[in-house]
């Protein structure tokens, strides 16, 4: 998968100095917890982790720190990162709109007149209890 770094040449990627998005500590995606995009490299992971630890230190914010630490442990070595990447839920492939849309039927159809005429008299009726035969036997 393209979202799996082992399939892409991550070493050629330009490393960023800061996380690429807001850290979302409640996410099930460890990259999102660290505020990173999915293809972040090991050094980006490390940098993001230490930035967040400054923000959520174990002394001042132990719960938040646990979440950050847990996410970091899933990505902090090549081995664990490979395993995490292989079993990380994926977005659907990009949506491609239809090449050909269905044509709208925008012309007058005389059938509509016939339908109107069919609403007149017995053809437009749906209750015929008066036509029931009396019960015998």
């Amino acid at each position, binding site marked *: 998968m393209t979202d799996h770094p*082992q*399939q892409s040449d991550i070493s050629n990627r330009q490393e960023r100095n800061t996380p690429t998005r807001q850290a979302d500590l409640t996410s099930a995606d460890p990259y999102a917890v660290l505020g990173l995009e999915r293809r972040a490299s090991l050094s980006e992971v490390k940098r993001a982790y230490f930035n967040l630890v400054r923000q959520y230190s174990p002394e001042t914010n132990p719960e938040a720190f646990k979440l950050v630490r847990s996410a970091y442990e899933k990505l902090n070595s090549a081995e664990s990162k490979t395993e995490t990447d292989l079993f990380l839920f994926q977005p659907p492939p990009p949506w491609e709109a239809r090449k050909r849309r269905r044509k709208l039927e925008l012309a*007058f159809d005389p059938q509509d007149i016939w339908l109107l005429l069919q609403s007149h008299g017995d053809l*437009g009726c749906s209750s015929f209890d008066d036509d029931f035969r009396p019960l015998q036997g």
Partner: protein
Amino acid sequence: MLKSYSAPIDPKSSAMYNIVSASTLPQSDEMPKKNKSHNKQKNFDQGTASLTANGLKAFRQNDLEKALASWEKISASQRPVKLIAEAHFRRGLGLFYGSDPQIGLIHLQSAATDQPQDPCYSYHVGLAKHRLGDIPGALAVYQIVRQFGGPYAARSAYPLALALLQNGQDPATTPVWSELTSSEQSMLCSANAFRRRPYHLPPESPLLWRSLAAFDAGDHSQAEASLDLVSAGSATAEEISLSHFYRGMIAAKTENWDKARREWEAARIAGLRSPRLDSNLAEIYHRRAEELLLQGDAQTALAAAGEAKRLRPDDKPINELLAQIHQLLGYRAAAANHWEEAQSHWETAVGLDAASFRLTYNLALAYERSGSYLLAGQTWREALRRRPRSADHSDALGDDQVARLWQRAAECYRQAGEFEEVGRTYQQAIKWAPENLAVRLALAENLINEGRLQAARNELDRLLERSPNHIPALLRLGEAYFRDEDAPWYIKAQAKWCWEKALALEPKNLQARQLLAEWYFDQAEIDYSWDRYAEAVEDYQQALDFRPNHLETIAYLAECFFHLKDEVKGEAFSRQAMAHAATLEEFACIIVMWFRIGRFERAWETLTLVEGRIGKAPVDFYVSMAFQLLENQQKENAIRWLQYAVQKANPEDNVYVMIGEMAMNIDVHLSMEYLKKGLEAGQMPGQVHLLMAVLEARQGNKSASKMHLSEADRIARRTKDADLVERVKVARAVTSDAGGLLHHLMSMGESSLLEDLLNDFDEEFDDD
């Protein structure tokens, strides 16, 4: 039976209606299926009169299906044909104007076939065909009705004239024209103008029709102005719905999609049912959903796509779009740790026939999260089946990754307890990564757990061929030899070789030491059981080398030396055992060792030391030591321990009852003695009476048993002890006789046990 219609028309003939007889009507939910043999039997049992009466009763209750089913059982010559025709007629009208027009038409046709001389039924067949768009069929039927004369001939004048017009004929040139009202003639005259373009309508034509003619001519502003007037005036519901529909058309032509959607929804609400309307409206919703999705508003896109699906349920592109939205919403839910919601979205997407590698992969993860391991395993398998095979694909997996996914599937199957599947999936993993030793090891471990020890050994041998010094494989291979109960000793002995090799490779490997200790302990026990104490000592000492301070081993070593009359070493090891013992279980090992060699005073001394070290032990410790003695025919010594237990017990221990109950299967008299003491001490009287009842019954004292049961029952009811009431009931059944036990099992619904018993009985006496 399908009879085909053919001209010339005979008004009295039934062959004209494309008749499908009632007996060939499709068996819908509303039409109960017939069991032929059952019906046949019933026909024998029930007379014509009762069937007629039953049908009539059902008819009066408006249960027309039941009425028809009753009457159709009557022999053809005696059937109430008129009633059957009327029932088909009423059922046909109900279905035609209700849930199922096609089946309704078949019933109407049956009525007309059964009573061809009644124009009412034929007339309604004509109306039904007309409404279903079968204009030639309707025309034929109307013409027959006209030949009957009377009120139905008059009523058929307008439908016939309209059908002629729809069939491309001019009704004004036919005799029926004179029977129409002037307003009907005017309408049909105007409508006649729509037979040929361009449409030139007379000025007295209805405003809506003129609007439509203007629309057709491309004069949209004129058409829109007129359509507005139609809605504002006193138009019929049909006219209003059509005016909304065409206003929507005008809006769509100028790409004012919101207005088009509003107008077309208004047309639907006003009652217009038209495939064009549904198709256009579905397309508008489809486009809106696509736009919203591209804008990132998946939630609103979901609603729009849902509307599109409602109108075109089987449209593939709509289903694909809907599946995409569900996948995206599932992904977002998973990211927010809302896995149940994610699972639901992904399941819906799969249900839309959109299963892909990514989707099934995500779903497998969701199933794992929810603990649905069997589903997870199956879904991983499905994901693997759907994985892209082309290496260029963005989701392409390498061989190692494929193997890892198979391994994951195997792990899910193992969690689900599906061990056969575990083996199969591990085999798949190995196929993709033959050099992946971890996978081979996992497969071998599964085989060991399954008890397939030879297969496990083969797998581990293959692993060791690739990596001869693989320590975990050596340890598992040893296990696969050691656990093989059926293998001869020289095969089992391979275990020792494997573990020794592992230990040689890694001298501090704790698992290898532990396993070797168990090996020597096992060997020592064999010698011990044959009173070969000298040999046992050697093996116990080997075991102790690998597992130093193992209390049980030390205690056995002490015992062996005492047997060998080496008091010095025996004492030394017993002291060593005492020095290392920390838990009650460990002290129990030492006390039981003294029991085994008949040194009861030393056991007693040990107890004193134990109490000095850890204080008073729980009462069940003393009692269990006493029972060790009882089981080894040392009643006198056991009594001493029991008395000590009584002395040490707290009131809430109910020690007499505890001892009485434990002794039931070892010493009946002792058991009875302690239960009586319990009763005197007021310890759990209901329970004591129950136990005494069982003891008395076992000794054949039925009356005493009954007395105790009654007493237990009385106490249980007085104290409202539902559990005891139930147990008394069981005891009563079990102690009465064998029949009582059987009755009790049946009343409990122990069907499987009973089935087994009965099956055994059947097999036993099958030949008889």
